[in-house]
């Protein structure tokens, strides 16, 4: 995208619009532009670089290092609103661990959505992971309980719990997530060791509300941005990083098992400004 040439303020205004168009949000976009004003006079290339650096610094300011195996079994719980890519992301993560030689077990805790268990089962078979399931309609926390118990008994390295999509405004469903984490910690100390929130890159400002509510319900310590292979830039994660300091760990770049990449702040920031 070529910015209009002109004086500084026009360039900054154009960049602010570019950031807004990338779903960074008005408030965060204005904060970013304000932050680089202290650099003094810069040409357009200098301005762009300063903006990119500012975005990188916001993204790198988030703490933590999820996804190293810190326990046995190491338990990862995947959460998020409906249709963001949780189940597919789990398949990709499982595939990574299996190809590194780990024993992986998937917990089919989405006992609600039509064919959710069948979907996960197909992925488990393709990837070479174990799976624990109950009947559709069963209590999600009891599936988690059985999955973790089975993992302990079978000497599993990694357990990944798939959960049903849920809108963050549904109090009872958010409480269910809290219950799953409570039950998990009873079977394996410290479980779930990682709680990953999967966001859809096409989501706008609502992702802030999602980050807040899911964090409150179950200590989210990592974000996955899925569907970045589309045209959406996923800029909302900059606003999330600024406000909630949750690290972004992976990005989803397609529907196949290999379409998962570790998050790179610099590459992401450059993508925002393109």
């Amino acid at each position: 995208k070529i910015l209009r040439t002109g004086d500084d303020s026009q360039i900054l205004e154009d960049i602010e619009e570019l950031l807004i168009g990338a779903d960074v949000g008005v408030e965060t976009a204005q904060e970013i532009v304000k932050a680089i004003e202290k650099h003094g006079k810069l040409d357009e290339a200098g301005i762009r670089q300063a903006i990119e650096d500012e975005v990188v610094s916001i993204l790198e300011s988030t703490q933590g290092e999820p996804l190293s195996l810190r326990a046995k079994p190491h338990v990862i719980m995947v959460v998020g609103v409906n249709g963001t890519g949780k189940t597919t992301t789990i398949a990709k993560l499982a595939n990574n661990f299996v190809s590194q030689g780990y024993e992986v077990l998937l917990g089919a805790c989405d006992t609600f959505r039509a064919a959710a268990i069948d979907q996960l089962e197909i992925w488990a078979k393709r990837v070479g992971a174990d799976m624990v399931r109950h009947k559709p309609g069963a209590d999600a926390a009891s599936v988690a309980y059985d999955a973790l118990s089975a993992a302990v008994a079978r000497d599993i390295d990694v357990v990944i719990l798939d959960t049903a999509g849920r809108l963050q405004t549904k109090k009872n469903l958010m409480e269910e997530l809290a219950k799953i984490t409570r039950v998990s910690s009873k079977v394996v100390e410290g479980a779930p060791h990682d709680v990953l929130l999967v966001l859809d890159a096409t989501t706008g400002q609502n992702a802030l509300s999602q980050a807040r509510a899911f964090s409150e319900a179950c200590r989210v310590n990592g974000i996955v941005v899925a569907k970045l292979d589309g045209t959406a830039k996923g800029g909302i994660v900059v606003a999330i990083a600024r406000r909630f300091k949750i690290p972004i760990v992976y990005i989803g770049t397609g529907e196949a098992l290999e379409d998962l990449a570790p998050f790179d702040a610099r590459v992401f920031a450059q993508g925002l400004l393109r």
Partner: protein
Amino acid sequence: ELTHKLEGVLKRLRGQGKISEQNIADALKEVRLALLEADVNYKVVKQFTEAVKTKALGREVLTSITPGQQFVKIVFDELRNLMGEGASEISFASVPPTVILLAGLQGSGKTTVAAKLARRFKQKGKKGILIAGDVYRPAAIEQLKTLAKAVPVEIYYEKENRGVVEIVERGLEIARKRVLDCAIIDTAGRLHIDDSMMDEIREIKQRVNPNETILVADGMTGQDAVSVASKFSDSLGIDGVILTKMDGDERGGAALSIKAVSGAPIRYIGVGEKLDALEVFHPDRMASRILG
């Protein structure tokens, strides 16, 4: 919320005599902010505020005794203009079956919408069939079968075939033979920038000639709504839109963006995961929701 903010901005200036263009500019800033926070695309916001500005600079607001109220009325009227007149449900063809083709991005809610539409039409006494046009996603057919059973409504699928166009044609053949009222085609989620997948759905449309091609879009879509809607509109052609997952706290500005770039009416909104959670879209209710 916005109405209060606008009335505040313009009320504060009442003691100063006539409302100036600068005052209008300040009020427009509030409108812009509200729309952007609601996820309306920034280009659509620009067009919208320009249109409001032109009207607001007219004599009505500048010399009104209650300029705040006048301004708010202009904003709402302009929004209602953009969003469309009244409710606009899918209308049935005079010669059955009415063929409805669903399209959209991954995870937007198409499969769920397919079953919701089938249920809605069934309640109106229509005989329908669901056609499982997603042959890629693991357990997609199983998902549609489960939902079809829950309505209950007929479903046509082929487990082993990967030729989507043939599957859809065979499903429609059944719908025609049995003189069913409607056939609803579920398709795989696809990116608007995936040429081969866009070719696929274009081919389905050409062969099958649906009465209604519907873009199923996620209600919490942000700025990207413009790229998606314009590409589907230009490449495929859309007759209507269904906005899903509107039962959360998203403001739903994507509705405005999609309507602005595609011109297609929003027919329904999804307001939950259950099959009865489909409502007719009301433009004025949406306008209030977006403006906050």
